[in-house]
């Protein structure tokens, strides 16, 4: 299973904070983005940071592992 997290404005647009996706060997971050981006284009248009296991990731070709936690995030506005 891959755990997918959404926060703040992104969560509002996806209308959930969390979903699960089945893991399949060879799966990349790009596969997840492509799959979810089609269903939630409005949410993904404001995604500016992606983290895998709490670390920011720039390379969308990154291979995922089972039980990874992916977070799709809009620009931070804390402080």
């Amino acid at each position, binding site marked *: 299973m891959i755990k997918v*997290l959404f*926060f*703040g*404005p992104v*969560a*509002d647009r996806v209308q959930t904070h969390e979903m699960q996706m089945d893991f399949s060997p060879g799966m990349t971050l790009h596969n997840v983005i492509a799959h979810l981006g089609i269903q939630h284009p409005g949410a993904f248009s404001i995604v500016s*940071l992606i*983290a895998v296991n*709490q670390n920011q990731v720039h390379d969308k070709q990154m291979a995922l592992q089972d039980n990874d936690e992916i*977070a799709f*995030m*809009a*620009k*931070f*506005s*804390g*402080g």
Partner: protein
Amino acid sequence: MLDPVRIQAEDFSQNEEVEALKASSRRMGGIATFIGCARDFSEGREVSQIGFEAYGSMALAEMNKLRSEAIEKFGLLDARIVHRVTTVQAGDNIVFIAAGAAHRAAAFDACRWMIDELKQRVPIWKKEITPQGDAWVTPHP
């Protein structure tokens, strides 16, 4: 003793935080602090409340990293970062940063650097709740 880096719903006490900071060293000559609080209006709109949401585990990890980097980069004796994640009213405290150093220049530089970096690097989002409706804040580019 409270942890030097925290995300919490409840308010913080400057007295307690500064006391804890000072406890780490008797060589501290200067302490710079920053308190961010909720304004009652923003960009011309009246704001009655501000709500916060955080990616807790990642936010806490980044805040800890930020503190360690500041201590290293500015030669601090100690530093603290506390961010509230809850819904606050106008005038309420949001964030507290403290930097303690032998001399004041390092304390000021580090305190300012930490709040600037926090805004860039820590996954927390704020939503302004106004009489006209709610809106997530979009940071200026």
